[in-house]
C-alpha cells in the first residue's frame, strides 16, 4: 500500500517545479502553464487525501479547481491577446511600464 506521504511529497515537488517555472521563465505563456502545474499539484494531493480519508470532499474540490482553472485560462489568455495586440511582446520582463 503506498503511504499517503509519498503522494504529498510528489505534489510538493510538482508544486515547487511550478513555482520555479513561474519565477524564472520569461515567456508569460510558460508562466501560465506553471500556474496550471501548481493547480494540478494541489489536485493530486486533494485526490490522495480524499482516497486515504475515505471522504469525497477532496475530489469535489478538485473538480471545482479544474473548472476554475479553465475559467482562469480563458481570462488569462484574453489578457495576453489584449496585451499582445498593444505591445507585441510576450515576455514578462519587458512589461515594466509602471515602476517606482
Amino acid at each position: 500500500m503506498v503511504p499517503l506521504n509519498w503522494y504529498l511529497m510528489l505534489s510538493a515537488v510538482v508544486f515547487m517545479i511550478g513555482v520555479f517555472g513561474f519565477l524564472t521563465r520569461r515567456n508569460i505563456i510558460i508562466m501560465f502553464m506553471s500556474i496550471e502545474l501548481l493547480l494540478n499539484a494541489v489536485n493530486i494531493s486533494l485526490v490522495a487525501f480524499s482516497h486515504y480519508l475515505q471522504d469525497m470532499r477532496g475530489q469535489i474540490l478538485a473538480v471545482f479547481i479544474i473548472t476554475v482553472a479553465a475559467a482562469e485560462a480563458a481570462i488569462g489568455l484574453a489578457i495576453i491577446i489584449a496585451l499582445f495586440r498593444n505591445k507585441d511582446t510576450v515576455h514578462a520582463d519587458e512589461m515594466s511600464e509602471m515602476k517606482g
Partner: protein
Amino acid sequence: MNNYLLIPFLPLAAFLINILFGRKYLKDNAHWVSILAVAGSWVVTVITLLDVLSGKVVNEDIYSWIVSGEFKVSVGFLIDQLTAVMLVVVTTCSALIHIYSVGYMQGDKGYYRFFAYLSLFTFCMLMLVMANNFLQLYFGWEGVGLCSYFLIGYYFDKKPASDAGKKAFIVNRFGDFGFGLGIIMIFLTFGTVYYEPVFSQAKVFAVQTINFLGYDVHLMTLIALLLFCGSIGKSAQMPLHVWLPDAMEGPTPVSALIHAATMVTAGVFLVARCSPIFSLSETALMIVALTGAITSLFAATIGLVQNDIKRIIAYSTISQLGYMFLAAGVGAYTAGMFHLYTHAFFKALLFLCAGSVMHAMSGELDLQKMGGLKKYMPITYWTMLFASLSIAGVPGFAGFFSKDEILWLAYSGQSPVGKFVWAIGTVVAFLTAFYSFRLIFLTFHGKFRGTYEQEHHLHESPKAMTIPLIILCIGAVASGWIGIPHLLGGGEHFTEFLTPVLGHPEAHGTHAEEWLVMAISIIAGFSGVGLAALFYLVKTDIPVMLAQKFNATYKVLWNKYYVDELYSFIIVRPTIWTAKNILIGVTDAKIIEAIVNGIPKGIGEFSRILRKVQTGLLQRYAAIMALGVLIIMAVMLLR
C-alpha cells in the same frame, strides 16, 4: 493720611497730563504743569517734615497689590525721620531743577516730553523713598532706572545718547538682579517683605547660616550683600560705576537732578533704611566701607585728568557717593545721610553751573577751550566757587561738616577697617579739593582759549537759570549748619533727628583726637586748593610736564583704567559672539536643525530606495512574495 498721598501722586498726575496732552495742546507751556505739581508736593513735604519733627511717624497701606499664597504685599507709605530727610532733598532739588530747566530747555522740540519724564522721575523717587515694603522700594527703584533711561536717551536721534541710556538701564539691571534675590531671601527667611516686621525680627536670625548655592553662608551677611548689589548698581559704585560718566550725554538738568542729587543716592538710602540688617553682619559692613573707600579713591584719581567739565563732576559724584558708603560701612549711617543731604545741594549746584557755562559757551564742554569766564558770568562764577569750597571741605561750608563727621566717625568707630578707610578718605579729600579747583581755575581764570564767535557770544544765563543757582548756593553753604558737631559747639541736630531710625553712632576717640582729625582734613583740603592754584594759575607748564613724565599713568587715568573696554571684552562681546556662532551657528543650526531636518531627509532617502525595489518586473514581485512565504514559514516552524 490722604495729604501724604499728594506728594507722589501730584507729579504722577503731571506726568499723565503732559504725556497725553503734551504734543497737541500744551507744547511749550508744559512746564507749568510739572512745576506746580513739584511745588505742591514740596509744600506738603514741608508739612510732613513738621509732623515728623513733632514725632508723628506714619506707616499705612493704601491697597493690596499682590496676593499669591502666603506672599502678600501692598502699596503703602512709611513716613519717618529718614523718609522726611529724603523727601526734603528730593522735592527741593526737583523743584529747583524744574525751574532751571525752563530756561535751559527753551525751544527744544520735545519740551513737553522732557517735563513729563521729570515728573515721572519725581513720582518714582518719591514712591521709592516713602515705601513701607521692599517690593514697592523695588518698584520705585526700577521706575527711577527707567526715567534715567528716558532722560539720558532724551536726544534719541544721537547714537551716543541712546547708547548711554541703554547702558545705564542694563548696568542697573545687573544691580537689580542681586537686589531682587535679596528681597526673595528676605521673604523666604521672614515670610514677609514689610520693613517693620523684618527689621524687628532681624535679631532672631542673627547667628543663623544658610546653604546658598551649595555654600554655607551667614544669613544676614548674604541678605545684606545682595541688597548692597542693588545699591552698587544704582549709586554707581565699583564695579557697576561705568554707566554714570556716559550718563552725561543727557541734558544737564537731568544730570543735576538724577545723577547728583536724587537717584544715585537711593543706594545709600537703601543701606541706611536696612541698617538693622547691615549692622548684624560684620563682614557686610566691612565690604560696604571698603567698596565706598576704593571707589571714591578710584573716581577721584580719574577726575584729576579729565577735560570734560561734566565728566569731572560725574566722577566727583561717584567719589562723594563712595564717601557716603564709607560712612555707612563704619556704622555711621547718620553721617552718611548728612553727607548725602549736603552733597545733594552743592553737587546739583556744580552741575547747574556747568550747565549755564555750557549754555554760554554754546555747548562747548572741553576745559582746554575755556578760561577767563569770570568777568562774563559773575553769578555762575561765585555760585560755582562756593560749591567748590563746600565740596573741598573748607570749614564753615556744608561739605566740611558732613565730610569731617564721616572722617571722624571712621577714625573713632570700632569698625576693624576704620583707620585704613579714614586714611583713604583723607587722601580723597585732598584729591577732591585739587580737581574741583582745577576746574574752577581752568574755566573762570586765565585767558579765554575758545574760538572768536564763542567769546563774542559769552553772556550770563537768564534769570530763570540764575535764581535756582543762588537758592542752591544758599543751601550748599547753609545746609551744613544744622549738623555742626558738639566739638564746635553745634547741636548735631541732624544726627539727633535721625537717631530714632538709624541709631546713634558711638565715637570712642578723645576730643584731642577729634581736633587732630579735623585739622588733618582741613590741611588736606587747603593743600589741594593750593596745589591746584599753583598748577593752573601760577606755573601752568607743570601739569603738561607731569603729564609727559608719567605718561603711562596719565594715559591709564585718561582712559578710566580701561574699565569700559574690559567689560565689553569680558561680557558684552563674548555673549554676542556665543549668540552668533555657537547658538545660531552650532546648536540651533547644527544639532537641533540637523536632527529635525535630518529625520525627514533620511525617511525621504529610504523612500527613494523603496521605490527602486519596485522595478515593475513581474517576476521580481513573485520572487519577493515567494521569499516572504519562505521567511514566514522558516520563522514559524523554527519558533
